[in-house]
């Protein structure tokens, strides 16, 4: 059974919480006692109907304000799939939560209030979906009931959205548009008679069809989490010599017999066995937690990377990346952090902050003195040891890193690796050094 991870974002009052609530309600994912509790709470707050948005409101502080903050995980199932929704607030101050929530999503649902159309929030949400290369974006133009279910209005909103998206859409991302009215259930799980001019699928149908596994073939990458060596204390000599490299395949696939390279030592070997939970397998795919046994005892430990000989990631001692800052303490040139790429950790010194991006207009402010909480910019870091990463847009699973503050231990930034710009050629010596 496949798992589909969905990121939802939308402005306050766009009806996002109600949309999610309705998805849960109509797939029979809400137990009776929770429905009763919501009914009671709705009455207490003076709301005249069953307020399904209460299903996703969580922590005490928020309950009083009636707004969702942070990343809330909501689960529902259909007979064919398991869904995990990472719901985050729409307010601009919570860019960090949106980036966090969307980081594992294969689908991003962006809500627009039909009355207001595309607003700053919308551009922000889409920018993040584009930055993260979320494979599928579903734009729900909500509250269609409040604009008379008018097709003209829907078409206008879609046109406005396309103007933003066309500028920055990453290759391979699909965007779909649908009119919904989450309050009344129009087009959420079922088509609606009110929207008879719309001939596409309802939201749940789209979700049921979304690609669970990326159709593209990615380079094979496995980050070693631990080396399994039962060693001493075993009478079984086979176990005594057992040496397995355990980790989760980030991308691509491995098969018994594959020629591999272990990094950083750059030693070559080939796979003799793929062990998984006591059984041997001929091959394993991205996402599987396995243990590889190799023909040779090579030098590789936690943090190392195994890839195919024909497709080795280049060592990066310097990385350039789009960075989203997640912490109150700002990023400034010269600052050092722990950089974690997969399970591998190195030290990173900030060489330069090249620019801050206005996520709404995509204008860049060059060479800012700092990068602040919720800002997205571009920066270059110098590393204490090389990492073996791919450009994020080429292989997302091996192209991101987090920055950790060495004193507070907080996760303060996330980076999406960009290709390094080509080196500037040296000035022609014939011209000399001065004029």
């Amino acid at each position, binding site marked *: 059974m496949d798992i589909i991870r969905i990121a939802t974002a939308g402005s306050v009052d766009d009806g996002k919480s109600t949309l999610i609530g309705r998805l849960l309600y109509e797939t029979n994912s809400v137990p009776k*006692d929770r429905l009763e509790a919501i009914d009671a709470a709705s009455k207490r707050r003076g709301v005249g109907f069953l307020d399904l948005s209460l299903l996703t409101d969580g922590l005490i502080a928020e309950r009083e304000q009636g707004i969702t903050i942070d990343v809330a*995980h909501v*689960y529902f*199932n259909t007979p064919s799939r398991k869904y995990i929704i990472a719901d985050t607030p729409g307010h601009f101050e919570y860019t960090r939560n949106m980036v966090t929530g969307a980081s*594992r999503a294969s689908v991003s649902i962006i809500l627009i209030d039909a009355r207001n159309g595309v607003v700053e929030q919308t551009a922000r949400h889409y920018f993040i979906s584009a930055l993260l290369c979320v494979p599928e974006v579903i734009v729900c133009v909500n509250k269609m009931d409040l604009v008379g279910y008018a097709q003209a209005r829907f078409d206008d909103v879609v046109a406005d959205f396309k103007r933003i998206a066309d500028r920055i859409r990453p290759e391979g991302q699909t965007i779909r548009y649908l009119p919904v009215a989450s309050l009344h259930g129009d087009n959420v799980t079922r088509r609606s008679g009110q929207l008879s001019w719309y001939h596409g699928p309802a939201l749940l149908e789209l979700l049921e069809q979304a690609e669970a596994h990326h159709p593209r073939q990615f380079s094979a990458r496995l980050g070693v989490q631990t080396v399994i060596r039962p060693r001493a204390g075993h009478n079984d000599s086979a176990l005594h010599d057992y040496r397995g490299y*355990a980790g989760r395949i980030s991308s691509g696939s491995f098969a018994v017999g594959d020629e591999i390279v272990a990094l950083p030592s750059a030693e070559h070997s080939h796979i003799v066995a793929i062990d998984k939970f006591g059984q041997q397998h001929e091959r394993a795919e991205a996402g599987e937690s396995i243990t590889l046994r190799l023909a040779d005892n090579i030098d590789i430990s936690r943090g190392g990377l195994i890839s195919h000989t024909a497709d080795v990631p280049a060592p990066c001692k310097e990385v350039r990346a789009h960075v989203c800052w997640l912490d109150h303490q700002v990023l400034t040139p010269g600052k050092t952090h722990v950089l974690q790429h997969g399970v591998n950790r190195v030290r990173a010194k900030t060489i330069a902050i090249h620019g801050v991006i206005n996520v709404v207009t995509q204008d860049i402010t060059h060479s800012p003195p700092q990068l602040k909480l919720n800002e997205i910019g571009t920066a270059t870091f110098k590393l204490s040891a090389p990492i073996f990463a791919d450009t994020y847009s080429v292989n997302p699973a091996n192209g991101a*890193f987090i920055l950790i503050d060495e004193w507070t231990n907080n*996760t303060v930034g*996330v980076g999406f690796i960009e290709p390094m710009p080509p080196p500037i050629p040296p000035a022609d010596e014939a011209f000399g050094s001065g004029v």
Partner: protein
Amino acid sequence: MLQTIDITPVTVHPHPTVIAPSHAATAALSHATRARFPRELEDEAVYILREAAAQFERPAILFSGGKDSIVVTHLAVKAFQPSKSPFPLLHVDTGHNFSETLSYRDWLVKSLDLQLIVRKVQDSIDAGRVREETGKYASRNVLQTVTLLDAIEELKFDACIGGARRDEEKARAKERIFSVRNDFGQWDASRQRPELFDMLNGRISPGENVRVFPISNWTELDVWTYIQEEQLPLPSIYFTHERDVFDRDGLVWADSAFIHKTPDERPYRAHVRFRTVGDMTCTAAVKSDAGTLDDVIGEIRAAEISERGARIDDKRSEAAMEKRKRDGYF
């Protein structure tokens, strides 16, 4: 007395209070009725457990005898095969446990060759660390937090692995996989680290520790489906059995010496099972004839009451769980 129980590997026959799934029954299931388990959840849990072992000095599994901690224990065995699971099991014994839970616990550690450490709430009470609750709703559920925190400090655990899931309760919906707790075991919403992609940041300062939740993304149904597909034996109280119960607040309570009944609360005999297992003072039963895993799963799918709805401790206030997490409860 505080004691660590050492279990030497022995061949153990299943205890009568352990119910192992009947192979015949499972095989007879048709495809239509068989729930399917999303295997990616298992891969994710194993990845998290391997990270817990690598990033922390002294991690341990918090074991309650409930189905979630049983699943976590099995996942930990799988994650490091053919080496042994590196995590000891810590059981905070409230003293009000179902006897079936304790028997099961002892059987499980013997059969999987695991280290078990027990710390008792009674000892905390005797040492004056906590005071016994009184009255009709008296339970040791809140007290166990103190015993837990004392045990963590005594045994110097820097990471405690538990079976909590995000779908269980509102306050858990936003919980991290690695949840950082301060010196007092307290959870502070504003201090939780963002978790991006599947990268886990377990860096801590001395005195801090982390709660690890490998099955965060599993729903109750996922847990049951996994148990069924893996044929994991469970304590018998998860299946129908006859027992003395009484009605209180619209729920069915197990009658025991640990509960203060009022004169009008009369026990009667009924066929019940437990959907969630706290201890006897904080778990309500469900009237049921479900004797097999398939029956139990069938009932859950049709379930009217959510799993934690049967947990009396959660009813005390709408934000009960969050308050207890802030106090250091797992």
